[in-house]
């Protein structure tokens, strides 16, 4: 660049350039600092998420492996001294048959199944190990005696025979073998007696006790008496029913009100007030919705406590603002020219909305809805107030049966007195809940891309 110093306009230009250049370093520095801060924030967020997942997976995955005891169980006829299951006699009345059947079942339940388990386990005790009945039984989960009974009911020919079964080891054995309890603690502070611990170690070393996949987490209901067999099936179904109620109620009501407010309602003080209040509702703490649900649905409408229906209604109230706000935002995004095109052709307002505006916003509405539902699914606080944190040991067969929900189950397990065992179970339950959430979000993403491609 050749600049002649005699030319004043060129002097001015180079002076201007010098000023600009002087500021450049500072500007670049600011930009670098901002970029660095942004990168740092992203890394921190990722780090938190990663450590969250690592913690949950690290704690939860072992819960899916549980110790089972391979043992030969003899259905000893001397202990099982009931006759065969009564069959209906010719001419026997309905009531008589039912009475006979019930009496038989009662008899069966009163049998000393513990003795059968004990006899089988006794075979495994190595010579020289003194272990009393109580300690021996503490190795096997208490629910297993019911399982043995059910096996016999299902197949009466088992009577008198010996079969090899994988019995679920108790939660305390699980703790001992996995090291979730400090093995150096003195006897007085151990949950298992010394002989029981020795037996467990011995059998584990021999391969008689082996780790297997814990189906019980997925297929069983919660259990206090037999923690090792406690599962999520009831809570999962409860959550599913609630989700169903939320989808059936919140989606049509939410989308409908959003359409009305956005496309039909005249601008007035009243609609402004409604809009402000919907926005406020979105910010109301969820526990307040729980109080409302308890007061309204349970106290006033007399709906049953602990029912997924009530939970679903409360979560519907909570999800509605989210869906309404998201739907309205989506509707606002539809270009005015599309509305004019439809109206100009003589479409009524309703036709305009349902033929043109709504199809265009469907992907956004769908995503918002699913995310709203997923949020509701993870909500715990309002459920505590309508009794959905109760201990329920059955799988609900309808939305008005008593049930609990996944997050409430996590809350319950977290507070269980057998902390050593339930810490892993809690993380396992969190994994199931997260898997459900991720699945829902995946559906949202899938539907969105699918619908947008079809446009």
């Amino acid at each position, binding site marked *: 660049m050749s600049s002649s110093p005699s030319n004043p306009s060129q002097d001015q230009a180079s002076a201007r350039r010098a000023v600009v250049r002087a500021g450049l370093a500072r500007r670049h520095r600011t930009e670098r600092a901002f970029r660095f801060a942004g990168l740092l924030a992203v890394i921190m967020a990722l780090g938190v998420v990663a450590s969250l997942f690592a913690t949950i997976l690290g704690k939860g995955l072992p819960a899916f492996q549980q110790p089972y005891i391979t043992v030969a169980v003899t259905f000893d006829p001397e202990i099982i001294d009931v006759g065969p299951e009564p069959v209906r006699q010719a001419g026997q009345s309905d009531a008589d048959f039912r009475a006979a059947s019930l009496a038989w079942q009662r008899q069966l339940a009163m049998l000393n199944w513990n003795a059968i388990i004990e006899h089988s386990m006794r075979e495994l005790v190595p010579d020289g190990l003194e272990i009393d009945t109580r300690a021996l039984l503490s190795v096997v989960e208490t629910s297993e005696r019911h399982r043995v009974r059910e096996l016999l009911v299902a197949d009466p020919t088992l009577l008198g025979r010996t079969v090899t079964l994988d019995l679920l080891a108790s939660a305390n054995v699980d703790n001992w073998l996995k090291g979730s309890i400090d093995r150096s603690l003195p006897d007085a502070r151990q949950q298992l007696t010394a002989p029981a611990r020795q037996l467990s170690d011995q059998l584990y070393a021999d391969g008689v006790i082996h780790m297997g996949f814990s189906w019980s987490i997925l297929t069983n209901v919660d259990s206090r008496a037999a923690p090792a067999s406690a599962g999520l099936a009831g809570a999962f179904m409860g959550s599913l029913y609630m989700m169903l109620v939320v989808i059936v109620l919140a989606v049509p009501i939410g989308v409908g009100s959003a359409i009305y407010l956005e496309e039909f309602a005249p601008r007035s003080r009243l609609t402004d007030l409604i809009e402000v209040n919907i926005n406020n509702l979105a910010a109301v703490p969820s526990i307040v919705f729980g109080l409302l649900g308890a007061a309204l649905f349970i106290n006033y409408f007399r709906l049953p406590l602990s029912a997924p229906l009530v939970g679903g209604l409360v979560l519907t109230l909570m999800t509605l603002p989210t869906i309404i706000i998201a739907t309205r935002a989506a509707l606002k995004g539809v270009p005015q020219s*599309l509305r004019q*095109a*439809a109206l*100009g*052709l*003589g*479409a009524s307002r309703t036709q305009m909305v349902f*033929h*043109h505006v709504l199809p265009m916003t469907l992907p956004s509405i769908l995503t918002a809805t699913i995310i709203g539902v997923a949020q509701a699914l993870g909500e715990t606080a309002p459920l505590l107030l309508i009794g959905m944190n109760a201990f329920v040991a059955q799988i609900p067969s309808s939305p008005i049966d008593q049930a609990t929900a996944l997050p409430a189950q996590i809350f319950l397990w977290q507070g269980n007195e057998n902390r050593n065992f339930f810490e892993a179970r809690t993380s396992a339950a969190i994994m199931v809940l997260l898997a459900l959430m991720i699945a829902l979000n995946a559906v949202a993403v899938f539907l969105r891309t699918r619908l947008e491609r079809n*446009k």
Partner: protein
Amino acid sequence: MSATVLETATPVHQTVRTPDPDARPVRLRAEDVSVFYGEKQALFDVSIDIPEKSVSALIGPSGCGKSTFLRCINRMNDTIEGCRVTGSILLDGESLYDPALDVVELRARIGMVFQKPNPFPKSIFENVAYGPRIHGLARNKTDLEEIVVTSLQKAGLYEEVKDRLNQPGTGLSGGQQQRLCIARAIAVGPEVILMDEPCSALDPIATAIIEELIDELRANYTIVIVTHSMQQAARVSQKTAFFHLGRLIEEGPTEEIFTNPREKRTQDYITGRIG
């Protein structure tokens, strides 16, 4: 007549009118139409006759009220919050603002083409078929297909799209999209077609095609067109009305307005001094 320059800013506004001896019978008549957006008055006592089966152009600088007036004719202003229209507009002597008149029926009789091509995000076929379908104009599927094909033919688009009727209308070029919008308006069988600067988003070639099309459509439809381009008004219209600041300043046969304007503001505008 020589270019007599008249006094402007008369206290009581008077539209300068040049009668057209060859004009066709009146189809649409506006009488003292005023439009208010809330407190603000956008249009002041506009009266004009629109002859049938001809093109009438509304010209004027931005914000002069020409589009507002156009939207009064098919009551699209109804959709704007706080908009109020006074005066009367008559179609064949029937008031368009009669409370008993259904606006949906009215818009089936008076079609509209907008400034920016706005095809529905649907197939070409569906775009054209939508109007007849909602108004129940086709008895069956073959009927509907026939309406779609003739409408596309009338809009001069059929040859270009006949092999891809099922492809989205939004995939066409700007000019084709605008012709699709015209076809869509024609498909309902309107008596009047309103066009709001239909070529402002198009390139010169597409514009020429549309202008030619407008000239052909004149044989069957009464057309009112708002345009920013004076050349376009001169080329396609038989009657021109000049709007300024919400008032109809001058109206008359297009040739008269362009060669021999009687109002100073009209002259200033067409010679490029205002606008």
